[in-house]
């Protein structure tokens, strides 16, 4: 419990620091640390696959991509006046989320609806149908295979969109044919 609270405190401090940070390079590094700490938090909550994804995507590839983007823009964010409206929106959203938490089942409650519906079937099925220890892989790959296929298609579509917008698609100049 103490470890979780410490990590949450660190996350809060880092989030506030990122919001106040003008140096974009430092902000990128801090957001990588934020991801790494969230990964640690997920590990403490026994969600290793989620933790792994957070570490690989949040701390890994997105930091590297942000660094690549930073190489082409100025190092510092422009100074601007503090704005009231965005702050109000953020505070209201946060308050709504906190209000919503009250209705959620308490952490790790085995009686929670999400543990009652399909999960027992999946847990029993993975041992019988696959004989592999990682239930998450069996769920993602097979029980929820359609969803994962959809996700892969979404990733594919995103890439096609980005490449259509950004990639250099000018036709290459061919070597001029020698005139006879």
């Amino acid at each position, binding site marked *: 419990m103490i470890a979780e609270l410490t990590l949450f405190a660190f996350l809060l401090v880092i989030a506030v620091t990122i919001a106040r940070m003008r140096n974009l390079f430092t902000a990128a590094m801090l957001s990588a640390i934020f991801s790494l700490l969230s990964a640690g938090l997920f590990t403490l909550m026994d969600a290793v696959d989620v933790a792994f994804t957070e570490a*690989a995507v949040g701390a890994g590839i997105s930091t590297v991509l942000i660094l690549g983007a930073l190489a082409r823009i100025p190092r510092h964010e422009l100074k601007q006046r503090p704005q009231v409206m965005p702050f109000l929106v953020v505070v209201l959203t946060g308050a709504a989320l906190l209000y919503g938490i009250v209705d959620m089942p308490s952490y790790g409650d085995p009686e929670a609806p999400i543990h009652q519906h399909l999960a027992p079937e999946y847990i029993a099925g993975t041992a019988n149908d696959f004989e592999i220890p990682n239930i998450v892989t069996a769920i993602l790959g097979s029980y929820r295979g359609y969803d994962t*296929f959809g996700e892969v298609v979404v990733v594919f579509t995103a890439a096609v969109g*980005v490449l259509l917008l950004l990639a250099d698609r000018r036709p290459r100049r061919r070597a001029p044919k020698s005139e006879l």
Partner: protein
Amino acid sequence: MQEPKHFGAVDPERVRRTLRPQPMHRKVIVRVVSKALIPYILLFGLYVQFHGDFGPGGGFQAGAIFAAGLVLYGLIYGIRPLRQAVPGRVLERLFAGGVLLYGGTGLASFLRGGNFLDYGVLLYDPIHARHEGLLLIELGVGLTVACVLTSIFYAFASWSPED
């Protein structure tokens, strides 16, 4: 005879040269550390890919790790050597191939009399077949994610606002 400089003497010109902003490949710590780490990042990506049934991870994480290794290489040694090793055209074919591999595995089980993406009918032993089917579709996911992320990096790296 010139007096030899004692060990630890500070040469101001040298300090100035070291502190000057340099391109990534001139920074010796970044270069040496990344050169030692990148092969292991790629290897770890492959491990996560093919070990996703026994440990945490799977195609998506493996693809992200593999792409992070490639993009790191591109950031430090320049995009040109990376493009020579992994050309953009190959990436585009591979990420389409990953989607086709996933869909193809589903279609194969459909053609063998099962439901779409029901891998149990692919081989004689259903348990074995489901296991192999999982590995195949994870390979498709990994290929797509790794190649998509690297292509997006290429697109950003070669984009210039003047065009």
